[in-house]
């Protein structure tokens, strides 16, 4: 892909805080234009640091690559970016409309355009009724909706959302999901940072999982779960004697039922097995296509060979003893 096709293309991103805490350790990440990209990871994996580097809130220790075709940190490029930070704290003396219009003004929008967009977005996030109320009267979910609206006011090419459904009720979450899909259909790129794996699974075209400052896995959910795809065939009776001759097949007996697992994502591959089971006169009770959920994938990514979950936070270098060996 060329730079134009990549909304985000960063390589070798490093960030060390206070010379010891390595929050990012050589992150490579590409986000294609017009896709919904999900960034996952446990607390302290470096997701927010990476987002903040893209948004020029945090200065990288080392970075190369482009953001909307410009070098990282190129301020004018941010005119085409919408951003909703995690734990945002808009001034409570502002109204919802003020927040949206203020955000538009900072992006350099003219008054007429930001007013028009504010009205449209207030309606789109269901906040028209409370547009003139001060933020201090808003619930967490309402604040989140206004936050989303301010991130979209400048008609951005890319929207970066850090935990956008935080504090939002199930109905609101669904509305936000629908909104994200609409934005993608409009050709915008969405960069999502979230802990809610099931929601990401529903909307993301591609995901990356970060663990301790590095990208552990990335790709489409189909690509990432490809190896885990299998079919499960439940039938009555013991393990068929011929099952060993089937490639990538395993069995498990549970009571009077035998579960045959075949690692493939092609239904065509299991037809011979089904034929033989029928020829044997077996009763087939269930045929089920199985793949890893994003949660399984996530847990696999954050768990090491010993089965221990990665500790939260960046990698901390031990202090060097003065005059001693490193």
């Amino acid at each position, binding site marked *: 892909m060329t730079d134009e096709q990549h909304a985000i293309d960063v390589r070798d991103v490093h960030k060390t805080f206070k010379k010891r805490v390595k929050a990012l350790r050589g992150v490579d990440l590409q986000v294609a234009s017009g896709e919904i990209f999900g960034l996952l990871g446990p607390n302290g994996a470096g997701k927010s640091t990476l987002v903040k580097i893209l948004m020029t*809130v945090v200065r990288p220790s080392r970075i190369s690559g482009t953001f909307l075709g410009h070098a990282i940190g190129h301020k004018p490029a941010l005119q085409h970016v919408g951003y909703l*930070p995690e734990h945002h704290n808009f*001034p409570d003396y502002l109204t919802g409309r003020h927040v949206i219009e203020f955000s538009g003004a*900072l992006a350099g929008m003219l008054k007429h355009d930001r007013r028009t967009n504010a009205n449209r977005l207030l309606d789109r996030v269901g906040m028209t009724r409370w547009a003139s109320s001060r933020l201090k009267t808003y619930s967490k979910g309402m604040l989140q909706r206004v936050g989303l609206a301010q991130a979209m006011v400048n008609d951005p090419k890319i929207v970066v959302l850090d935990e956008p459904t935080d504090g939002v009720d199930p109905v609101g979450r669904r509305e936000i999901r629908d909104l994200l899909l609409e934005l993608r259909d409009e050709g915008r790129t969405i960069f999502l940072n979230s802990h809610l794996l099931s929601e990401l699974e529903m909307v993301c075209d591609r995901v990356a999982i970060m663990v301790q400052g590095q990208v552990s896995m990335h790709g489409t959910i189909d690509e990432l779960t490809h190896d885990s795809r299998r079919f499960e065939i439940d039938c009555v009776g013991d393990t068929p004697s011929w099952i060993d001759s089937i490639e990538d097949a395993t069995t498990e007996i549970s009571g009077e039922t035998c579960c045959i697992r075949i690692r493939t994502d092609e239904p065509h591959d299991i037809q011979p097995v089904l034929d033989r089971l029928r020829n044997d006169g077996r009763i087939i009770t269930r045929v089920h296509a199985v793949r890893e959920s994003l949660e399984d994938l996530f847990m696999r990514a954050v768990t090491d060979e010993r089965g221990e979950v990665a500790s939260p936070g960046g990698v901390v270098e031990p202090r060097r003893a003065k005059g001693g060996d490193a």
Partner: protein
Amino acid sequence: MTPVLALLVDAYRLLNARKIFWLTMILSLLVVGSFSLVGIDEQGISIAWWDLELFELNTGSAGYTKALFYKVIFTEFGVNIWLAWIATILGLITTASIFPEFLGAGSIDVVLSKPIGRFKLFLIKYITGLLFVFLQVCTFTTASFLVIGFRGGVWEPGLFIAIPLVTLFFSYLFSICALLGVITRSTIASLLLTVLVWFLLFIVQAAESSLMFFDLMLEQRVEGYQTAVERTETQLAKVEDPDDTERWAFLHETLEKRKENLAEAESSTASLDAWHTGLMSVLTVLPKTGETIELLSRWTIDLAELPEPMASTSRPLVNDDGDFRPDRDRLGQDMNEARRARSSWWILGTSTIFELVLVVFSAWLFYRRDF
């Protein structure tokens, strides 16, 4: 330009939402309103319905003009006390939170993600912080101008110089407050430390004024003993009878004593001069809050306008017994003239350089920081 205007409008909304802003505005107007209760005529002054006959304060024998009277009220009470102390403290309380709140987690992220450079953002935010005092002084000065005009019949546009002067004076303190706000990110810490620095500045300036006073007094002392030496030498020369050895010896002894006194005074003056020069060097690099405010009376009140001081009894500074008694009226005038002799550029220039250094340093910290 749009982001700059947006930040200015946001600053106004911030002030508007703070009750202390409006409280200060109302109090300012009450202070101005009190000017309208004060009048001056040939007999003395009037406060509301009370007439006070004052020998030293009237437009008759005391030689005051209405214009001078109201300008003195405006500068001495309105600016020196209200704006430069009480309103400034209220202003600091209101604005101390601007940077700590702006830099707080969740607040700064959205603003930094916009296409505005950090230096520019910091400077705009800094300037908007001065909006509080600017609006207050504009209101106060305009109201004073109208009240003094209608009440006293004196239309004095020179009063409006208070707007840039008081705003500049406040900006010295706000630059300290902004730096502390960027470093500590705590409203309380930045406010208290700013007030502490202000107090220290006051101490340095008061110490310099005291040294100047004693310096001038010692100069009078030197002058007094010089005159006494000359007087004694003249007396000694007039002793015509060479046999009058008793008087000659007395005068000779007196002359020696006066010379000793003179040498001692000159030595003290030199020593105090060194201290004064040292303190002036320190003061040069610090913001001159008091003198900046004093410029208002320097620029609006001409010394020639002031009533002639009553002729002081011409008595020698050192009497025949050799005791030094300073001429306090002259000392006051000398102090006034010495302070007025200081260049406005020195006062404003060095103070502004101090402010610029602090602002650039704060902006640099802001520029380099991760949020």
